[in-house]
């Protein structure tokens, strides 16, 4: 991944930073400049909770090349209490134990490595609650 693009995404990938519309309260990840609900342009920076609910998931058997060694893996869409949904891998769980509606928590993980020479990319994954 290109270092400049990676660095721009750090606020939400590293620490779940979101923009909350000061007028209507809608929450956006990643951050944005104009609220698509009310058109306001002022936002408060908030950090999302680290407990989520699994909305839906799928098992990836034929991943993109950088995730090949991790196949098969579960990819889930989770909903945060703030109303936002994010997509990420669900790890440290048997596929048979995955249930929509289950509680999961967010954990900081290495997402990909750019070959032998490139940067290491970090971000969030979902794991069972402990």
């Amino acid at each position, binding site marked *: 991944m290109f270092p400049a693009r990676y660095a721009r995404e*750090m606020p939400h990938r*590293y*620490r779940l930073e979101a923009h909350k519309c000061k007028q209507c309260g809608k929450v956006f990840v990643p951050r944005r400049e104009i609220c698509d609900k009310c058109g306001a342009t002022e936002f408060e920076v908030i*950090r999302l909770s*680290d407990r989520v609910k699994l909305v839906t998931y799928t098992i990836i058997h034929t991943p993109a090349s950088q995730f090949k*060694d*991790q196949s098969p893996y579960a990819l889930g869409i989770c909903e945060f209490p703030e109303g936002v949904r994010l997509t990420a891998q669900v*790890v*440290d769980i048997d596929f048979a134990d995955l249930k929509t509606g289950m509680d999961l928590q967010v*954990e*900081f*993980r*290495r*997402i990909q490595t750019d070959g032998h020479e490139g940067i*290491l990319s*970090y971000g969030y*994954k979902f794991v*069972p609650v*402990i």
Partner: protein
Amino acid sequence: MEGIVGYGAHIPRHRIKVEEIAKVWGADAPSYKRGLQLREKSVPPPDVDTITLSVEAAKRALKRAGVDGAQLGAVYIGSESHPYAVKPSGTVVAEALGAVPDCHCADYEFACKAGSEAMFVAMGLVKAGYIDYGLAIGGDTSQGAPSDALEYSASAGAAAFIMGRENLVAEIEYSNSYMTDTPDFWRREHEFYPQHAGRYTGEPAYFKHVTGAAKALLKKAGAEPGDFQYCVFHQPNGKFPMRAAKMLGFTKEQNLTGWLAPTLGNTYSGASPIGLTAILDVAKPGDRIFMVSYGSGSGSDGFIWKCADRLAEVQNLVATTRTLLDERLTYVDYGTYAKYRRKILKNY
């Protein structure tokens, strides 16, 4: 008064048993288990490294401290497995915790002593009044060469401590350091696995420094082993810390709570710090804890902690170290372990 305001650990869920490693190399598992007093060790999956372990341990420490990442004046990580050869681990951790940009940051290295070094320095800066809160982390995802004795113990985990002056969970009473130049364990640049000097790693290295630091610390404090409810020593295996405790006059009971190596393995820079978190999870206000780390090369840092009233309020705010160590485990076979630890050479 200065001391620990919050603490936390993180341990991967995957484990490999000594038998599983021994069968691949034709070794006698019972003699390894008896000799090293090890049953299994933690294994980091490919998406877990010293940085990710540090972030998770630090998040638990911040929750127990009731402190926001932005309040941290220093972020220090001690490890011998920093993911980058050049580029700090600490910047990633500080960014993930929201500690940037007004923060001092450094990575420490001193084999297995790097974590207690970070604690020593963060505590010193708090004492000096340079910073209000300092984060000190010891963590590793260490590797032993396949079939080497180290392969049975080298494991993964991290512990994090927020040092500060108010709302302490444990006060620092005394600390000291003891070091010499001792070539017992090393890894040259571009080498993948470390080398060690066999039996020389015992008496002239581990035991000399651990007991040397411990005796000097007891003298400094005017204390005796019986004055402490708990002790914790660096644990490269299960056997060494038990023997060091006995040599110094501590009992098995004092040593048991922080003695995690039999099922955790050797977490290197995380070893005695994670042991300390397991003690803090169950200690009572007023209890005194005696801690001595060890890092090859060689040196030991000693600390005497006295638990404060607030400890009881924070012990169960987040997952305890015993929970992380004992619950929801996934046992892997040697093939999976070899894949996870990138020991498989792909010739294509």
